[in-house]
């Protein structure tokens, strides 16, 4: 399975963000999308996740145009965006249980608890997300990387709000994913300390 982007153009409001963007991502490869603020990094990632449709050009997954089999594509995709994606009133445990059901890969309570303690959140599983710090929320969200098994990760600024230790943990996860044949599309305002990957500057 590969992700193939051909001649992509994107318009936001009345402004043309970028045009004629093409690249291809194979298993074992990762791509760092760079660019200034407002260059369209998030827009590109959202396009690749099938959240919006491009002005022109096409994106295909395993040779199939994304809009032709959106549900099938979403089975293989984990996209984490800017927004927290967590319900403030629910606990981390409830949030992750629900997301795993929505992902179609229901996780047991034990599995979720062990992932939470992996991220150093043991003891926080029954507090409402509302009372957690930004870094803790981010770690709850990143727990989904371990709960949903799928080949394609699209991560928008995943290092935001993380401390040094969590950043290293995340690097381990990303390296592990790519070396096991996963694909990774990521934006980050800091240089990525990972083995050679594709760099796409907008």
């Amino acid at each position: 399975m590969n992700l193939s982007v051909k001649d992509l153009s994107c318009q936001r409001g009345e402004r043309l963000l970028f045009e004629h963007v093409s690249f291809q991502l194979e298993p074992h490869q990762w791509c760092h999308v760079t660019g200034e603020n407002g260059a369209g990094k998030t827009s590109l990632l959202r396009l690749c996740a099938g959240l919006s449709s491009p002005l022109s050009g096409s994106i295909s997954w395993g040779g199939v145009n994304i809009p032709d089999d959106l549900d099938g594509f979403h089975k293989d995709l984990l996209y984490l965006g800017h927004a927290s994606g967590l319900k403030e009133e629910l606990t981390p445990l409830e949030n992750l249980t629900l997301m795993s059901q929505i992902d179609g890969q229901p996780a047991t309570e034990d599995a979720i608890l062990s992932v939470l303690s992996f991220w150093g959140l043991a003891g926080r599983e029954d507090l409402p997300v509302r009372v957690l710090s930004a870094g803790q929320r981010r770690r709850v969200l990143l727990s989904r990387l371990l709960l949903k098994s799928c080949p394609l990760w699209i991560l928008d600024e995943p290092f935001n709000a993380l401390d040094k230790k969590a950043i290293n943990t995340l690097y381990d996860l990303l390296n592990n994913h790519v070396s096991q044949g996963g694909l990774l599309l990521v934006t980050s305002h800091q240089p990525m300390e990972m083995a050679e990957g594709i760099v796409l500057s907008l």
Partner: protein
Amino acid sequence: MNLFSTIYCMARRDLTLALRHKTEILTALFFFVIVVNLLPLGVGPDPKLLSKIAPGVVWIGALLATLLGLPRLFAHDYQDGTLEQLSLSPRSFTLIVLGKIMAHWIVAGLPVVLITPLLGIQFNLSGPIIGVLMLTLVLGTPVLSLIGAIGAALTLGVRGGGVLLSLLILPLYIPVLIFGAGAAEAYRAGLDMTGYLWLLAALDLLALFFAPWVSAIALKVALE
């Protein structure tokens, strides 16, 4: 199986969330009770007149009470990014939306149905008429939630969304209002009211079939 589990999973999530904000449910319910109770103060306490207009008033109240919770149907999920995650689910987004609509009905429509006998007594309605009114509400309020979801999806994140939503949706509520209030009226006049009930049921099916689908399309447009 997957069909029901998706709907159930979403409805349960939204109900859990609603239960953590019990005041929101109660606010909508009290709003309904107050609107209906203001009427005698506006038109006078004549029991005959009141019992004549009661079904219509209860229905208008139900319309407004449903409308009150609609802007929140998708707005919270939109703001915190969970709606985006839901739309990325390999499960059918239409069914996810349907689950949310069902939760909205249980929170907004069902309490209205259950409190109607109390209002019926205040308005001097006889037992059978209260029964008929409740029946029409049970049949009709799901349509209000279903059609309302389309409006909520279209106005999601749009400025002035709440008022705009009312403007879009209220005209579409007219058939439900007419058949719902009409059935109780027909019953009191000694006419056959099964026609009304069948029409309400037909609207239910129609809305159940189309509204979640159209709402899902409108939500995807809003998320772009």
